[in-house]
């Protein structure tokens, strides 16, 4: 197992190198930041001075070398826009995204698993059809649409919840709800399919022959076996969220990593984009390893092979 994690980390490291190279050069293809940071009427001299001061006039390969050299010392550089260390800013934004993703995934999983598992008890029954339609609809609604409607309904119309921003528990309800709709729909679909096959398996028959209670059969025997594909899809969704629940963060004014990265590329704050991508990639690689470990945790056959 330890060897496995080791090899996974090695793979991740290789991918990370690719990612670093990619993000560095791709970002720099998007133009010189000087046109944003200086007033539009700035003279050519002022622009040259700005480029020199920030090293944008060095050949790309030299810039890359500086970047790699600093990175080796875990120095992600300074944000061009905010004039603060990139690492501080990224690490300040990351918890928001992480918490958002965790809560949304948790809610999505719970709702999806319960509804999907119950729907699977009678394939093509009334409940099954209902869950199917609702989850499909949930999976195909635009996020930003849902977000604004949710604000208009729950914050402005009913005045139950604050519109946006950070603060207490109540501030998280709307964004988390909005964010969880799509994964919930997708996961419910997977749970349903997976549970149908699990419920018709031989071990469920064995459990019935032993006289095990129905709820135990569904939620202990079948569900755990049905979880592997669910974890795969959930992991995929979680990856997307860690990469930034951009739309939700933008609309609700949550200072998360997705918004940070989108803003940064708009402002050509390259150090920031690089830092953001690297840190989220670390999180995503960690998540992938965690997913593999949870496969092993759920299924001993994987654990011992």
């Amino acid at each position, binding site marked *: 197992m330890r060897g496995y994690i080791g090899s996974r980390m090695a793979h991740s490291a290789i991918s990370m190198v690719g990612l670093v190279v990619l993000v560095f050069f791709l970002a720099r293809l998007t133009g010189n930041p000087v046109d944003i940071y200086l007033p*539009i009427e700035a003279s050519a001299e002022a622009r040259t*001075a700005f480029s020199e001061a920030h090293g944008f006039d060095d050949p790309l390969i030299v810039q890359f070398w500086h970047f790699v050299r600093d990175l080796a010392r875990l120095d992600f550089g300074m944000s061009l*826009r905010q004039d603060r260390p990139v690492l501080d800013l990224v690490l300040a934004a990351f918890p928001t995204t992480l918490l958002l993703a965790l809560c949304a995934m*948790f809610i999505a999983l719970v709702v999806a698993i319960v509804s999907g598992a119950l729907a699977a008890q009678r394939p093509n029954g009334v409940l099954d059809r209902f869950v199917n339609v609702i989850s499909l609809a949930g999976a195909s609604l635009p996020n930003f649409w849902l977000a604004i409607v949710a*604000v208009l309904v729950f914050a402005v119309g009913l005045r139950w919840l604050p*519109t946006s921003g950070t603060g*207490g*528990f109540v501030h*998280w309800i709307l964004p988390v709800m909005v964010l969880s709709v799509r994964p919930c729909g997708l996961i419910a679909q997977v749970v349903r399919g997976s549970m149908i096959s699990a419920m018709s398996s031989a071990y469920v028959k064995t459990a019935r022959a032993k006289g095990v209670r129905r709820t135990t059969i569904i939620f202990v025997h079948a569900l755990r076996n049905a979880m592997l594909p669910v974890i795969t899809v959930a992991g995929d969704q979680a990856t997307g969220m860690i990469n930034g629940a951009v739309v939700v963060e933008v609309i609700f004014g949550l200072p998360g990593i997705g918004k940070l990265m989108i803003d940064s590329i708009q402002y050509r704050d390259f150090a920031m984009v690089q830092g953001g991508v690297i840190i989220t990639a670390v999180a995503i690689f960690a998540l992938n390893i965690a997913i593999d470990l949870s496969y092993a945790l759920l299924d001993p056959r994987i654990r011992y092979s």
Partner: protein
Amino acid sequence: MKIHRLIMGLGVAGMLASPSHAQDKSGDITIVLSSAVDVVEPCHMNSTGYIGQVLKANVVETLTRMDPATSEIKPNLATEWKQIDPQTWQIKLREGVKFQDGTDFNADAVVAALDRQFSPELQCRDTIRLFAKTTIEAKALDPHTVEIKTSAPMPLMPTTLSQIGMTAPGTSTTEATKSPVGTGPYTFTSWDPASNLVLTRFDGYWGDKPQVRQATYVWREEPALRASMVKVGEADLGLQIAPQDVDPQMDVGYLNADTSRIRIFMDKAPLDDVRIRKALNLAFDRSAFVGTIMSPDALPASQYMLPSVSGYDDSLKPWPYDPEQAKALVEEARADGVAVDTPIDLFGSQFMQANLDEMLQTLVQGWQEAGLNVQIRMVDKIQHSAMRRKPYPTDRGPTMVHELHDNTAGDAFFTMMVYYTSEGALSNISDPKLDAVLEEASVSTGDKRRSLFQQANRTIQQDVVPDIMLFHMVSYMRIGPRVSFKPDFTTGGQLELAAISLK
């Protein structure tokens, strides 16, 4: 399970963290801005709207100030000023003023603040914009008199001084400050670039004590959210409310100093033909936009500045709507062999104004009916900037760019030299006669200066036609029931807390 506990914990922490309700909060207000305040360096505050809205006249003050009603320059931290010779100014300072950190405001402090503006590390946007290549040398003549020598004549020094913030002498000159200190009525209390910024009343302020005790700035990019926040009472002032969300009960519209136009690059056919440029202006009905896509308070524009700016010519009227004539002009040009069917690229950038997409699409439809083929290309902010300034990209066909300009300084100079002279960084005109007029105007003063600029404006609109002038733009501010405030065209760059009164 753990996550659940985490959520609960968060909720509890949030409740504990919010300040106790027992405290008197009647003097506290919340203002919701449209973009994040992630920089608070005062030497960018006149070039970056949201920095100015937070800092200018609240935390950091200027030596002079402009009266928005008359565009006149009034004393502020300076009590009087005089021009000794074309390149020397003498300024008398107000006495008894202290910075928020307790240091005295005196001639040395002003010299330090001016020098700081020119620090190469800071690359102050205000300095780059206001002084271009001109340098200055400031020195203290006595504790309350400063002399400024400039490398080139600067007749508008008092106006320029209304845009330079006086930071405390202790402020770093090598890196952007993250807690600016000035002489203003509010101290910079706290700032979390991710979520909010708080200003608190400064008790040692030299002027009148304002009503607002504390102001919290938050930001939301989504206009509907800003509107909702004021509506449900989460904020007292909401800026940049989208025209479609406007509720006349709560929202106040005001000319925001921005004028929109479409600049024509006159170098390629068919745009090199003045008939085509006129046809472009005649082919749509400006008044039809007002109250639909544009706010009902927007004004069709004839010149690239507000009527209150010195140098504006009242006699000029916006181009009329005359589709027949537009069509005729195009046909005439076509008959003369002008390639009128060449597709024209119209560049725009979403961040510039609300409903831009819709406005441009409507314009394109009008031009299409006049027989011109224009296609919209929306680009990123940075590409938009690169498109607008010299040196211009060379590999392009006939091009037009939508742009906005605000002249809050009150003098036509700040518009005309940049946009309409051959040397201007954002100009595509090269007309020696016009250059001569503008050159003369820029060094003149008084009525002569004004009438020369007016003359130039007439030439531009009627003979050169380098642009399609659109509207003087309107912004809406949503004002909550607890406060009253009257926004004006300076509000885009300055939001004086002292001008807010509590009900």
